[in-house]
């Protein structure tokens, strides 16, 4: 079905050569492969370079606050489960300002996808260290080098037995689109961390750096937690790309009687139930 759908072409505010361009292209091709109409897609983002993505394709969008895409996305999905809800933001947004929502989303397990444009830097604010910046990463804000250990989102997600954990690379659009399809079609909270070169502010994790290191995961059963944890922790000469961990579990919506009856949107008030409820106070 590829290319049956068209999500428009827009001018972006991104630097030429930025990894965001390929992620956007992969996203469009993934949506096309899933044959999703723009009207059935809701992209939710925070603030940052990555978070501008929803403005660059045809879709419904909720471009909210820095770090706060996940709660909005989870609730939007509950309100209308017919929507394919994808949260898309930067590493700073998702693991820095939004760290607590990242933990909560894994635990809450809404049927949404989180695509993190992980450039290991705060791009929009001109290059401060992000949670995923390597230790010692020198910036104007960290002239002595980043002092905190880098955050490994995959290891934490696997430790928490997140429903779906994967890593992609902006440099391999085909396989990235494929991962996106798998993440979005997975039922439950799906984390897709995408290695994204920032050609302006990250001189360490460059295109070349990744091209030399990224290796597709082969022969791995994503249900195998121990191996998943090993893959999640692997970072060095080889960086594994692919689906790392998967576990089916009840989603957020599965727990609520109201949601078992379909979307909240347009649901009328059950006047008889309300009267009964009111009368319970008599």
């Amino acid at each position, binding site marked *: 079905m590829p290319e049956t759908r068209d999500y428009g072409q827009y001018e972006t505010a991104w630097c030429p050569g930025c990894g965001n361009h390929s992620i956007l292209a992969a996203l469009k091709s993934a949506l096309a492969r899933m044959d999703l109409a723009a009207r*059935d897609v809701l992209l939710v983002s925070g603030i940052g370079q990555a978070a501008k993505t929803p403005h660059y394709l*045809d879709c419904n969008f909720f*471009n909210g606050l820095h770090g706060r895409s996940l709660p*909005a996305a989870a*609730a939007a999905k509950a*309100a209308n489960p017919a929507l394919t809800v994808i949260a898309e933001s930067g590493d700073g947004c998702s693991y820095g300002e939004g760290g607590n929502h990242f933990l909560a989303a894994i635990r809450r397990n809404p049927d949404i996808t989180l695509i993190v444009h992980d450039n290991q830097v705060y791009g929009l604010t001109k290059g401060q260290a992000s949670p995923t910046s390597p230790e010692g990463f020198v910036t104007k804000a960290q002239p002595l080098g980043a002092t905190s250990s880098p955050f490994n989102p995959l290891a934490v997600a696997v430790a928490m037995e997140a429903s779906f954990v994967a890593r992609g690379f902006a440099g391999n659009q085909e396989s990235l689109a494929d991962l996106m399809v798998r993440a979005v079609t997975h039922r439950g909270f799906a984390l897709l961390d995408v290695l994204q070169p920032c050609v302006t502010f990250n001189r360490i994790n460059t295109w070349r750096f990744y091209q030399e290191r990224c290796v597709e995961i082969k022969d791995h059963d994503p249900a195998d937690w121990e191996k998943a944890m090993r893959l999640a922790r692997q970072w060095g000469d080889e960086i594994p790309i692919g689906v790392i961990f998967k576990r089916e579990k009840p989603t957020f919506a599965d727990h609520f009687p109201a949601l078992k009856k379909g979307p909240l949107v347009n*649901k009328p008030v*059950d006047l008889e139930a309300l009267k009964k409820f009111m009368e319970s*106070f008599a």
Partner: protein
Amino acid sequence: MTDKSINLRVGGEAGQGLDAMGEILARALVRQGSEVVVTRDYQSRIRGGHNTYDVRTGTGRILAPREKFDLILAMNEETAAIDGPALKDNGLILVDEKTNAESDRIVKIPLQELAEARYRNVAALAVLAAAIGLGREILTRAARDRFAKAPEAADGNAEAIGKAFKWAASAAGLEGKKLPAPEVKEKRLLLNGNQAIALGALSSGLKFYSFYPMTPATSIGLTLASAMKTMDVVVEQAEDEIAAINMALGASFTGAPAMVGTSGGGFALMTEGVSLAAMAEIPAVIAISQRPGPATGLPASTEQADLEFALHAGHGEFPRAVYAPGTVEQCFHLTRAAFQTAEKFRGPVIILTDQFLADSFRAVLPFDLDRCPPISVGMGNRADSSPYKSYALTESGASPRLLPGMSDALVGADSDEHDEFGHISEDPEVRRQMADKRLKKGEGMLGEAIGPDYHGPPDADLLLVCWGSTLGSAIEAASMARDKGVSAAVMHFSQVWPLRKDEIISAMGKARRIVALEGNATAQFARLLRRETGVEIKDFILRYDGYPITPEYVLRELG
């Protein structure tokens, strides 16, 4: 007007079941046809401390708590000692006979004879009920209802009530405190402010409530959660208040009417989200149940000190509406108004209540739910222009609202400054237009704002100006002042923003003495009135020790 009410207190420590006792008593009274005003005073702990549950009851207009009690049921020695001074001259203190306390106002109950340990609190309550002439049957039924899920406890308590009534019938010193004959025949609800907010929200079509527990707002969420099995509503405890408001915005944007509830400290964490609601133009109802601050302050007490914060919370400039219910009924109706305003003007709307009202049970006629339709969300499935503009510039500033996924129209929400489609724009002209558009909605809100209510003789000499939960005490104080020959009236604001200044100025016109009545230390509403109307109120009655303003407090301060 002579006061025909009886004022009752049940006091003891946390863990003694005061809440259950108080609620059984209040429910029985309401069912029997009496009015009630409940005041709960507790501490921020689970066991121990000194807590009270006050029920003022009787017939006619009973609107406020009073400071002196006819009967105090003291569940421990400390209460008997601490609350003794709160007893009326002819009042009685009921205690267990083992209690080490002596006075001719004390009646001792042989609780050990009447019930085994776990039922003694209800047995004591039954003695109090008997003393005021409340029927055994009706009390037993209220107790059984309370323990409906624990049949054994229900039976045990029923038995204890029976024994206690028998004992009370022959006990000495319990006379003279009888309830006036009840006047009301209709079935009524026993409802507190927070429950009424929950009911108002459900009747408006609330579908999503997210919250992080915080006293005294938590019970809104608990009430709603208890409806989850029978009503189509999702109640979700969020990881923090920031998540709570951003969840509500996500749900609301998508078409599920949403609300959050919190207290001042939690609201502080929501202020960025309030600003987002305004910028992205998403309906959002925020209930703030105030308690004394700053910071953690007094978690279980009352205050009205977050008015200015609620009025100005959130960076940038945008309109908002702020309601301040004065009664439990207003909690219901103003919550409905809040949902309507939020939807119509697509932005944040605040309900400002406080611990006193949140926890204050009253006898309330059931709401005519057939006449309380839910809000209609969005404008249906079709855009009237194609392509749809999420932020179309209109005369009124409000843009027609479509819901994502419900039509072919693509719908956007954006926190950046944006064009009519919701896409990021840094164009100064677009900026100006959009800022104007947002502010124009404020004019619409002003047009629909609820003006102050006036209670008392027209052109009274003394005008008590108040807002929110102080209404009842203000009205009773004015009435007491009139009994003393002062021409007194009350001006109450149940909506504190926006304010229609001309109306206010003319309504204040003739009073010789205007006094602002507020549960805070700096007369915040009076300052707001001056800013908006130029009228400077120089006379204040303020309270900020954690307790609600009472009619007696007002009279004392009036001097």
